[in-house]
């Protein structure tokens, strides 16, 4: 299958290893990955902060770039949520209702792609670490991701999975909220970090680098012995032609 990758602007800029991991997993499963270089951003930051016209432009660009792509893979729940939940509402004012309606069924978050479309729960990975999974708010409440991430992680050789308590509680990132309400964001982060530390895990993973950047940043500041690693990088690990990737 030809799979078109939407890397997400912040992954592209700050977490390229996540994108490389996605490519590695999909190619190992025998698929061809294309990266349409004209891609930029789904518009979430602008949309959420109230800059709707700018978000509409970015949506328009997204639709143009991905015209004709049969399967679009996105390693970011928040971007998928933006597309599914908010593109339809913006489509009317841009005269793009048909294009958006036609786009939505082609968009998959990375674990959705693996489990639902490709029927895969074992990517052949090895990752001998104790790992706890943080469920981002978008994956939980918008994508209803269910247990897809767990099913994929459970197949990883050598892994020890520990459940994260209070996993339905927001980590406090929230995009510009992390800056505008930094004090509260930090308070929410502290609780999340405590839950993570209480699990005794070496690694915290998630399908969203936005959360992981916030959580990982907090853990690093405290010199905590926990690393944050995107789910894709765990699922790509231990495969001979790719590196074990950690941030």
């Amino acid at each position: 299958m030809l799979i078109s990758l939407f890397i997400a602007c912040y992954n592209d800029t700050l977490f390229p290893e996540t994108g490389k991991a996605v490519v590695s997993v999909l190619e190992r499963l025998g698929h061809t990955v294309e990266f349409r270089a004209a891609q930029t951003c789904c518009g979430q930051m602008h949309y959420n902060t109230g800059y709707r016209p700018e978000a509409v432009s970015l949506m328009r660009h997204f639709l143009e770039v991905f015209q004709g792509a049969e399967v679009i893979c996105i390693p970011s729940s928040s971007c998928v949520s933006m597309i599914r939940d908010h593109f339809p509402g913006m489509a009317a004012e841009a005269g793009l209702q048909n294009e958006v309606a036609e786009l939505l069924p082609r968009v998959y978050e990375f674990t959705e792609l693996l489990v639902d479309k490709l029927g895969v729960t074992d990517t052949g990975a090895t990752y001998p670490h104790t790992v706890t999974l943080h469920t981002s708010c978008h994956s939980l409440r918008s994508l209803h991701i269910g247990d897809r991430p767990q099913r994929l992680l459970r197949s990883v050789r050598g892994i020890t999975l520990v459940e994260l308590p209070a996993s339905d509680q927001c980590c406090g990132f929230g995009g510009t909220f992390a800056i505008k309400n930094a004090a509260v964001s930090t308070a929410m982060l502290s609780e999340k970090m405590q839950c993570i530390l209480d699990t005794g895990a070496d690694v915290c993973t998630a399908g969203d680098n936005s959360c992981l950047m916030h959580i990982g940043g907090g853990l690093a500041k405290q010199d905590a012995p926990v690393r944050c690693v995107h789910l894709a990088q765990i699922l790509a690990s231990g495969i001979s032609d790719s590196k074990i990737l950690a941030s």
Partner: protein
Amino acid sequence: MSVHVGNSETAATFPQAAKELLGNAQLRQNVRRATETIRNKRAKVVAEMPDWEDLRNSAQQIKRNVLRNLDTYLEQFEARCAEAGGQVHWARDADEANRSIIGIIEGHNEKEIIKVKTMTSDETRLNVALEAAGITPYETDLADLIIQLGDDKPSHIVVPALHKNKTEIRQLFLEKMGLTELGTQPEDLTAAARSYLRERFLRVKVGFSGANFAVAETGSVCVVESEGNGRMCVTLPDVLITMLGIEKIVPTFDDLEVFLQLLPRSATGERMNPYNSIWTGVTPNDGPREFHVVLLDNGRTKVLADPAARETLHCIRCAACLNACPVYRQTGGHAYGSIYSGPIGAILTPQLHSMEHSQSLPYASSLCGACYEVCPVKINIPEILIHLRQRLVESGDTTALETLEMKVAAFAMASAGRLGAAQKLMRIGQPFANMMVPAWTNSRDLPAAPKETFREWWAKRT
């Protein structure tokens, strides 16, 4: 027009207020414990209901229908209520409401009233107006009594004194009730409140209440409560004045079956709250011989006028959103500077003010969506928060710096070429970024800029 929403016009911004409150460990512990308790109770009783989603859907439809035909239902309610002996007054804003109420009380030459909790009276600052007119209002809800005795402010819609623990309350009662001794357990405190208030219930001639629902079909009014002070205030006095927001109308009596299932389970995690009182106009030899209803606008028609945010008015004041909110959990209600706090407060307060006040509230959210999940009337709070942010951007009520940053970012992301160039600039500017964003770096390290972006790596590969 003078819309008031408590004292929200002059409140500190959310970030300022939150920062201060975050330093109050006792408060935060009280808030955490309280919200977790109700949240868990709610989850348990909602799980018992296989038709919960059907109830939510019906409630949403009922409210949508009411708001679209509000004029019809308001007039119907007035007619039925008047036929049954009630007197209906209309109040465009807080001052008009307060004046009407004072007028009725003065007409009876009374100097005191007993009140049962209603947020509308906090909205209009009724107590301040009453006292200025030489009328003493006695709050009779335990929490409001605690707030009144302590010269404090409510911090939660359903459990207003949630920020106080029993030791603090005991101290307050000892001082203000003139008691020489008082036990330390909650039972002792409520027994003290019972005695203190009973004398007033049996004596005071004028009662004041709000209402949870007003039925257009019959002209009936419904008060949902736990303590029994509501029953006291709406039954025992000679004269009863009830104020309610115009959005509280429901079309038919049968519609109560939907809300009387959703509200108790959502608000206090009970299958049914202890007491509901429903009455229509005046009943000879049973209860007040004179009944007045004040229908309050006070900015609600402004909310109604924005189709994208209108469903804010579906709210039945259950406060499930407060209990679910991870932001509220950290700060409690005072941070919002409004009697309506938490997620619903963040959308309702600024809208009542036509977005002229409480402008920081729509940003007091990480958009996690927990509120929408628990809202019994399906208000899409995250969507409305974004919509309100958009309104603020459009009206120029954001900082010049932010607008600049957003426009620059949009410009950079308009094409891959520009994005690539911006990424290179960012790499160079990393150390400066570290310095410029202390809001981030005070508590979090910034990720190191990688030596190549994904697109650079991909380009080399092919």
